[in-house]
């Protein structure tokens, strides 16, 4: 964790503590603790790559182990303190399979909330990143119908919290409740299989509106992020493009000068600082009690090495007492891109070879950055066998796009993109 990531946290905590001190003069703070967890085994039919719970995990089920507990298992604890009726604080710590293959607990949330008026609240500190309908309970398996939220959609947003501020304004119209909220913050995610590689969201901001009318929930959201990629393998490609640009621009031959300018332009186009990502998403859910149907759809516009994508899912389930069979259809269509790159005709042999290597590097990077296309059908059964625990059995059939590897990670050299992957998962979710 960097210092920039810690500073707002410390501010939030000191505010929480000063709030606690004020409250202590009056009546005592009310503390409450709750926890949630999932113990899940997933078996994958793919032997040359791993199915992972998020692309921040270095390995998972398939290649490393045919059956693995690491993609979906986790344990979380949440401490809430209410200092005054308007001032509260929350700390949520989650342990799950990390980028460095450890299970080190992470502070997912640490924020103070102040209710300015009955309709308006502000939170300061580490706060959930509101990408999707279920972002707030993404890790609480018991609260969700499935073993995991559909990866075609939730895999697009692997940064789950922000250090910053958010605010929500609640309006009521009869029995309808409308909440409009906005946020601003920064975050850093460490990348797996790299030496110190990380993605810094600096900043992220967004606005979303949720309308609840009885059993119906409608949501529309917009999130804009500027990402810095630090310490990844793409660094050497950008350095190579800049180096080629400098060398070729210095030679007073027009074809070589042009190649130099093209190389500079590529280095600039795929620069790893401030890469823009914007997402517009829509969600709807209807849950009258005995059954539910829900769906989310997103349009993602990525600049630089991030490919644009459309994605969505639709899911439905029926509750027979404590048994809930469900079905989900999901799809992610990421736009595949190629670059013609540096023009090699008219270049001396040595420079042409260098240019071809850089062109290949650019296209390999683009291919791997836009290989997420996949669709899947999932069939599952949830059984609420205890008052605070449920067991789920889920089958997923995933069809990967052409030249795509979907959300698979840790691919072997003999891995073939495309094709299908089947998963069987058993999960026990609990809250306490």
């Amino acid at each position, binding site marked *: 964790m960097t210092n920039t990531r810690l500073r707002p946290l410390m501010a939030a905590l000191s505010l929480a503590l000063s709030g606690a001190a004020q409250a202590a003069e009056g009546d005592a703070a009310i503390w409450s603790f709750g926890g949630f967890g999932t113990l899940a085994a997933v078996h994958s039919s793919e032997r040359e790559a791993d199915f992972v719970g998020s692309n921040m995990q270095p390995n998972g089920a398939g290649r490393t182990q045919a059956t693995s507990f690491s993609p979906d298992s986790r344990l979380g604890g949440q401490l809430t303190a209410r200092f005054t009726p308007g001032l509260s604080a929350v700390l949520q710590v989650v342990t799950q399979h990390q980028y460095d293959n450890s299970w080190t607990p992470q502070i997912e949330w640490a924020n103070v909330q102040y209710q300015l008026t009955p309709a308006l609240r502000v939170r300061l500190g580490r706060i959930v990143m509101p990408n999707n309908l279920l972002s707030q309970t993404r890790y609480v398996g*018991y609260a969700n119908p499935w073993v995991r939220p559909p990866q075609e959609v939730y895999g697009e947003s692997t940064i789950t919290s922000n250090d910053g501020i958010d605010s929500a304004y609640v309006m009521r119209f009869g029995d309808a409740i409308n909440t409009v909220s906005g946020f601003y913050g920064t975050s850093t995610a460490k990348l797996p299989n790299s030496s110190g590689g990380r993605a810094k969201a600096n900043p992220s901001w967004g606005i979303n509106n949720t309308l609840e009318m009885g059993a119906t929930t409608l949501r529309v959201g917009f999130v804009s992020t500027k990402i810095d990629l630090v310490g990844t393998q793409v660094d050497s490609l950008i350095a190579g493009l800049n180096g080629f640009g400098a060398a070729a621009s210095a030679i007073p031959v027009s074809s070589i000068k042009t190649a130099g300018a093209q190389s500079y332009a590529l280095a600039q186009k795929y620069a790893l600082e401030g890469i823009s990502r914007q997402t517009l998403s829509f969600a709807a859910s209807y849950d009258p009690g005995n059954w539910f149907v829900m769906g989310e759809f997103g349009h993602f516009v990525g600049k630089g090495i991030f490919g644009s994508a459309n994605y969505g899912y639709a899911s439905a389930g029926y509750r027979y007492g404590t048994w809930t069979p469900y079905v989900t259809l999901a799809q992610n269509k990421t736009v595949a891109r190629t670059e013609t790159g540096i023009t090699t005709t008219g270049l001396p042999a040595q420079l042409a070879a260098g240019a071809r290597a850089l062109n290949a590097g650019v296209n390999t990077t683009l291919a791997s950055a836009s290989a997420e296309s996949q669709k899947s059908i999932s069939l599952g059964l949830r059984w609420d066998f205890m008052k605070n625990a449920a067991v789920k059995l889920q089958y997923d059939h995933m069809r990967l796009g052409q030249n795509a590897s979907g959300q698979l990670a840790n691919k072997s050299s003999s891995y073939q993109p495309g094709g299908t992957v089947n998963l069987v998962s058993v999960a026990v979710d609990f809250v306490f």
Partner: protein
Amino acid sequence: MKSSPAELALILALTGLLCGPVCAQVAVVMVPGASPLSKEQIANLYLGRSAELHPLDLPEGNATRDIFYKKATERDPAQVKATWSRLVFSGKGTPPKEVPDAAAVKKAVAADPKAVGYIDKAAADASVKVVLTLD
């Protein structure tokens, strides 16, 4: 057709058997003088969509509680639990305060003008106002 007393007794007994707890009436109660509430208002309150009043719950596993939630929100105990875990772990709310029995509900309701509780209709008396009957 005229039924004999024996037939009537049989019909009553069967009705009782078939109906059982599902037919039990649940009274939603507040302090005397409170205005009636709609089923939608009660569902919003007990599913965390509204925080204007102070809801009270009977303990988990209590038969009146299960009937109340089924009738007011169409949800089984497991679904209610899942709904509340969604709200609790997203920091959006805290579940209704639990009290041990109908007598405690009536006592709490009488003491707080914003408190709302539910009890078996048969347990309702003058200390509380029935703001909604679920049957």
